[in-house]
Every structure is written in structure tokens, then in C-alpha cells.
């Protein structure tokens, strides 16, 4: 679990509030989304892939086994057929040598007749020869002059004498036609001496016969010697007498063999033919069940792809949704934190300002009284040279004092030391009253006021004086911002049945973003020194907050600024508590 959570923490977006950099945050959330997507895809796709792979290989093995069994069955059939041929050839020759007819067939005519008879049965018989125990061909019937030829030194002669029956490999010999030999040896009943009947048969006989075997079930069928020499021609390995490298070792192998000439894998089965030096080989290009295999593969691939696409779509949308949700939450928390920080900052600056204001108030009262006294005394004094200048100076001092007084009172108000007196207020009427107060200034500057009040706006419970100050401040600012010729649009409406929203939009030059950030900060002013205290909007902010409401500003350069003031119809408890501080 610990390892898992550590691993999870690695790609979760970090909880950093120092970074305002949007691109860094974007990168972080993208990384998170990709990690999430990868994880989800892995979790969902891994089992599907494994299952598909297992199915794929299992089914292929099953098909191959079936294939091999079928081929083996074919091989058995072909083997029987071939064996029958061999047996028939054998018995034909046995028929010639039956019942100790040695002396009989030593006669040239008899042997010739025998050859003709055999030829009638199998066209492939070329010649016949009778050989005595010394290996000398006594009689010969056939197209070549081989009478008297000594076979004693040839290997096969010993074999046939020992075993009684012999079949040779296909060979060319000096006659240069592929042929093979079948020989049978018998013992003379009188002298106990062996004699041998040797028959030569054209290899075509084998070739023709093997071609008659139904090869539908296989792609290639041929005979091969134990040394790998082809006895009949093969589709894959060449003509008769050529060397087949794969067949050499395959005395009893039933397996998949790789072909060299780019024909891919083939399935090869082979069986020895009894009493011959031959192997029967069946070759099948893999997967005759290809149709079934391909359709299975196609379906498997289709299902897998559908599964993959579904996983991808679900994982993608899920990870995107989750990331967005987390991002929204993070941003909301961030903005709440920022707002709380801002309120705290405003509150602490406010407290400081109020403390300063309070300390200044007393000396200010002394200056006020002293200048008043000077004025009083001046009134009792006879005219002297600079009396008028004294009067104007005192008026200047008193003017300064009253400005200071205004600042300290506002500061103290900002610090929430003013009491809130809740009463029923008709907001539309209250705004109208404030506007009456500002009418002259607006008219003088050619500023038009447009009012879009919602009728039957519910009465709200609020402090009248403070509301007046709020709207006075904002509308005054709007007038200052426009300067001359413009429009102030004021709308009121109910929002969500618990708030009243007043929107004050001016057609002024708008507020640049860097100023917009600080617009509610105390002592922040863009007006010339002495023209504004920089407290108006921060006091407004404090007042709205104290009344349990909210104030936001939005602006675009050249498009004016809009203040949204949201006030609760009934203040909640937190606002009341703030009032009692």
C-alpha cells in the first residue's frame, strides 16, 4: 500500500501554491492525465491481451495437431498402397521362380516369355536375368547384352542370397535411365546352391503409381532413400535422383520443417516401406485449415480491436474527466486561498490604519482647536497689515484638518468599527436617492445614467448609511473614470432567491489588469496626490464584506469597468457576528 501510494504521489499534481505559471500547471496536469491514462489502459488491456494471446496459440496448436493427425492418417493409407505395389511386384517375381523352376527358366525362350508376361502386367519391367551362386548371369532376357555378366562383387548379391529378397534404390547405371532392381534368391533342391532371379524395373513405374495416390490431403508425396536421395520427383525438393537434405535425417520424424527456398514452414511426415530401402514422405504446407484459422484470427483481432478501442475511449474520457475535476477543485481551493489571503491582508492593513488614525485623531483635534482659537482671537484684534493673510492661512489649516478628519473617519470605518444597524431597505429607492445626490455632477459632465431596476425587488435587511456609502463610492468612481460624456448603467436583480445583485457598469477607459489586482487595496490610488485617499474602494470592499455580501470587478481596456455587488436579502450569522466585533 505504501509503495502504491508513493508511486501514485509521483505523478499526482503537486500541491504548490507558489506557481502561478499556467504553462507549468498545464504540463503538470497533462502529465497526470497521461499517467492515469497509461495506468488505466494497462490495467484494462493487459488481461485482454494475455487472453487473446493464449487463445491464439492454443487454437493454433490445436489446429496443427489435428492437421498432423490427418496427415499421419493419410500417410498410413499411402504406405499401405505403396506396400501393396511392392508386394505385388514381389509376388510377380516369386511366381516366376516358383517351385524350383531354375532349370526351366534357364532356357532363353522361357525367360523371354516370362518377361513378356510380366511386361503385360507391369509395363515398367525392363529385363530379367538368372544368376547362379557364383554371381554369373546365366540367362538374360531384355534389351541389353548382359549374359555372362558377373554380379558376385556387387553388394546386393550377398544381400539377396542371405535374405532371399532385395529391392534396390533407384539408380541410373550404365544404361542411364532411372531404374531399380528387385531380386529373389532360391536354393536348388538338388545341389543346395543358391540361384537368383534379377528383375529391373523402370523408376517411372514408381512415379506413375505414386501419382495415382490421392494427394488432395497433402501437397507433396514422394519416396526417398535412407541416404536422402529422391526416388520419385518431389514438388518441393526436385526431381528423382536429386538430393533432399531435409529428408535424410527424417527416418521417423513427424514434424514441422523449414524449407529453404522461401516456401515457409511445412508439415512433414514419413514412414519406412517394408522390405525396401525407401521412405514414403508426405508433405503438407502448414494449415490446410487455413480458412478456419484465418477467420478465427480475423475475429480475434476484431474483438481485440473493439475491446482496445472501448478501453481507450473509456480510459481517455475517464482520465480527462478526473483530471478536469481535480483541476477544478484545485483551482477553486487556490482561489479561495487567494481570497482569504487577500481579506486577511486587507483586514490587517485596516487594523493598522485604524490604529494610526486613532493616534492621529488627538493631535488633529488640538490643531483644530488651536487654529479655531487663532481665528477667534483674530476676530477680536484690530486690523493690521497681514490680517487677511492670517485669515486665509487659518482657513487653509482648517481645510487641511477637515481633510485629515475625513481620512481618519474613513479609516476607522474601514476597520469595521462602525456599527451596523439593520433595517428594511428598498434597494432601488436607495440607489435612486444616491443618484439624486450625484445628479448635478453627472449632468455637468454630460454623463447619462441608465437604470434597469428589477421591479418588485425584495426588501433587504441592511445598514442604510453603509449601503449609501458603498454606492456613493462606486458611482463616484465611475463618474471620475468617465470624466466627460459617457454612460453609467445600473441594474438590479434577484439571484438565486437569496441575494440581490447590483451591477454598475461605466463606459470609462477600463482598468488595466495590473491595477485591477490592487483595486481594493487600501491607499492604492491612481489619482494625483491629494485628489484621492486610495481608501474609497477598500472601504467599500470592507463594508460589502461586513454586510455579508461580495463585490467583484471586471474590466477590459477600452470597454469600461463593471462592479458586481452581491448583497444577501437576509444577512447570515457570520455577518452578524462580524458586526458585533
Amino acid at each position, binding site marked *: 500500500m505504501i509503495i502504491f501510494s508513493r508511486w501514485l504521489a509521483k505523478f499526482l499534481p503537486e500541491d504548490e501554491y507558489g506557481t502561478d505559471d499556467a504553462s507549468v500547471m498545464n504540463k503538470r496536469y497533462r502529465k497526470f492525465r497521461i499517467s492515469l491514462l497509461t495506468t488505466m489502459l494497462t490495467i484494462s488491456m493487459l488481461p485482454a491481451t494475455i487472453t487473446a494471446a493464449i487463445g491464439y496459440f492454443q487454437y493454433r496448436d490445436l489446429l496443427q495437431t489435428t492437421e498432423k493427425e490427418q496427415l499421419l492418417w493419410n500417410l498410413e493409407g499411402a504406405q499401405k498402397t505403396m506396400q501393396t505395389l511392392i508386394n505385388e511386384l514381389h509376388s510377380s517375381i516369386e511366381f516366376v521362380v516358383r517351385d524350383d523352376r531354375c532349370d526351366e527358366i534357364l532356357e532363353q525362350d522361357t525367360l523371354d516369355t516370362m518377361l513378356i508376361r510380366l511386361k503385360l502386367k507391369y509395363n515398367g519391367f525392363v529385363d530379367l536375368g538368372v544368376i547362379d551362386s557364383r554371381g554369373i548371369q546365366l540367362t538374360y532376357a531384355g534389351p541389353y547384352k548382359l549374359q555372362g555378366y558377373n554380379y558376385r562383387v556387387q553388394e546386393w548379391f550377398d544381400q539377396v542370397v542371405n535374405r532371399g529378397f532385395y529391392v534396390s534404390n533407384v539408380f541410373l547405371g550404365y544404361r542411364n535411365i532411372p531404374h531399380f532392381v528387385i531380386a529373389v534368391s532360391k536354393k536348388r533342391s538338388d545341389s543346395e546352391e543358391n540361384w537368383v532371379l534379377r528383375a529391373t524395373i523402370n523408376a517411372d513405374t514408381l512415379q506413375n503409381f505414386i501419382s495415382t495416390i490421392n494427394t488432395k490431403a497433402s501437397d507433396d508425396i514422394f519416396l526417398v532413400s535412407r541416404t536422402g536421395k529422391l526416388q520419385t520427383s518431389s514438388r518441393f525438393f526436385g526431381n528423382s535422383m536429386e538430393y533432399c537434405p531435409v529428408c535424410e535425417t527424417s527416418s521417423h520424424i513427424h514434424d514441422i520443417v523449414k524449407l529453404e527456398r522461401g516456401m515457409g514452414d511445412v508439415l512433414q511426415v514419413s514412414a519406412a516401406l517394408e522390405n525396401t530401402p525407401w521412405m514414403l514422405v508426405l508433405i503438407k504446407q502448414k494449415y490446410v485449415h487455413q480458412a478456419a484459422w484465418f477467420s478465427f484470427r480475423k475475429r480475434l483481432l476484431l474483438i481485440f480491436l473493439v475491446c482496445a478501442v472501448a478501453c481507450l475511449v473509456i480510459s481517455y474520457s475517464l482520465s480527462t474527466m478526473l483530471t478536469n475535476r481535480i483541476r477544478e477543485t484545485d483551482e477553486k481551493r487556490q482561489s479561495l486561498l487567494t481570497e482569504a489571503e487577500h481579506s486577511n491582508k486587507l483586514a490587517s492593513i485596516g487594523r493598522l490604519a485604524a490604529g494610526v488614525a486613532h493616534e492621529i485623531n488627538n493631535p488633529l*483635534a*488640538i490643531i483644530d*482647536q488651536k487654529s*479655531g*482659537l487663532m481665528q477667534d*482671537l483674530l476676530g477680536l484684534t484690530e486690523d493690521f497689515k497681514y490680517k487677511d493673510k492670517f485669515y486665509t492661512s487659518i482657513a487653509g489649516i482648517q481645510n487641511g*484638518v477637515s481633510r485629515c478628519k475625513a481620512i481618519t473617519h474613513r479609516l*476607522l470605518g474601514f476597520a469595521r468599527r462602525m456599527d451596523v444597524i439593520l433595517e428594511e431597505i428598498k434597494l432601488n429607492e436607495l440607489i435612486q436617492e444616491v443618484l439624486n445626490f450625484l445628479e448635478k455632477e453627472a449632468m455637468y459632465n454630460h454623463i447619462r445614467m441608465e437604470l434597469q431596476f428589477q421591479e418588485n425587488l425584495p426588501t433587504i435587511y441592511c445598514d442604510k448609511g453603509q449601503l449609501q456609502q458603498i454606492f456613493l463610492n462606486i458611482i463616484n468612481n465611475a463618474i471620475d473614470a468617465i470624466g466627460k460624456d459617457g454612460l453609467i448603467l445600473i441594474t438590479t436583480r434577484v439571484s438565486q432567491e437569496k441575494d440581490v445583485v447590483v451591477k454598475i457598469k461605466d463606459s470609462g477607459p477600463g482598468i488595466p489588469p495590473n491595477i485591477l489586482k490592487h483595486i481594493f487595496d487600501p491607499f492604492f490610488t491612481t489619482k494625483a496626490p491629494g485628489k484621492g485617499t486610495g481608501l474609497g474602494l477598500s472601504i467599500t470592499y470592507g463594508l460589502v464584506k461586513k454586510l455579508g455580501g461580495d463585490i467583484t470587478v471586471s474590466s477590459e481596456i477600452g470597454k469600461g469597468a463593471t462592479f458586481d455587488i452581491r448583497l444577501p436579502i437576509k444577512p447570515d450569522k457570520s455577518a452578524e457576528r462580524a458586526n458585533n466585533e
Partner: protein
Amino acid sequence: MSEIKVLIVDDEVEFAATLAERLELRDIAAETVNNGKDALSTILVRTPDVVILDLKMPDLSGLEVLNGIKEHDPTIEVIMLTGHGSTSSGIEGMERGAFDYIMKPIDLDLLLEKINQAYEQRKNLGKQP
């Protein structure tokens, strides 16, 4: 010459003295003390008609002095001086028997008006018993 006697109680010596001088110029007999104890001992000797009383002083607070004055002679009218932006302590003073309150820095004309009103009320109250 009006016979109104005013006692100014404020720890700011300069403020109290200047205000007294300005009241004298307007024919009001004004005396100053700079702390609560002096104020309470002064009223034992010379009974003023109106006391102008600062709310915030180092020794005794304005409200304590107000209690002392009202205990000694409820007919002495008291106008509270508040340095706060808040009106709450002024209102509290009024609940405890002060005649009115005025915010610092004061508007002298307004103060004079309040002094006269307070004096009228004291005179009326004095006649009643």
C-alpha cells in the same frame, strides 16, 4: 454674560486649554482638568452645569467618571467626547445618563449648541423638584 459653567475633562492638556479659552471667548465659564480623579474632586468644590468628558483617559475611563458625576449630582449634564469612528461608546454613555456625545475633532458650533441644550435641560430639571 451667560452663567453657564463648563468643566472640560481631557488628558490632552493643550486640547482642553484651547477649548476652554475658546469657550471663554464665547462667554462660557470654562475650567479644565486633565484626569478623571481631578474631575471628581473638582465637582465636589465647584458644581459645573455641563461637563465635557473625554471617553479615553489614562487613569479613570470616561464612563467611570460619568458614573461618579451622576452619583454625586444627577443634574449635572455630561457631553461625551469620543475619539472613535464608532458611535457605540457614545451611545453607551448616553444610556448611562450622558446628555449627548460629540466626535473629535469637534465642530465648535455643534458643541456650543449641545452645551446650550444641556444647560436648558439642567435648568428645567432643577426647577422641577
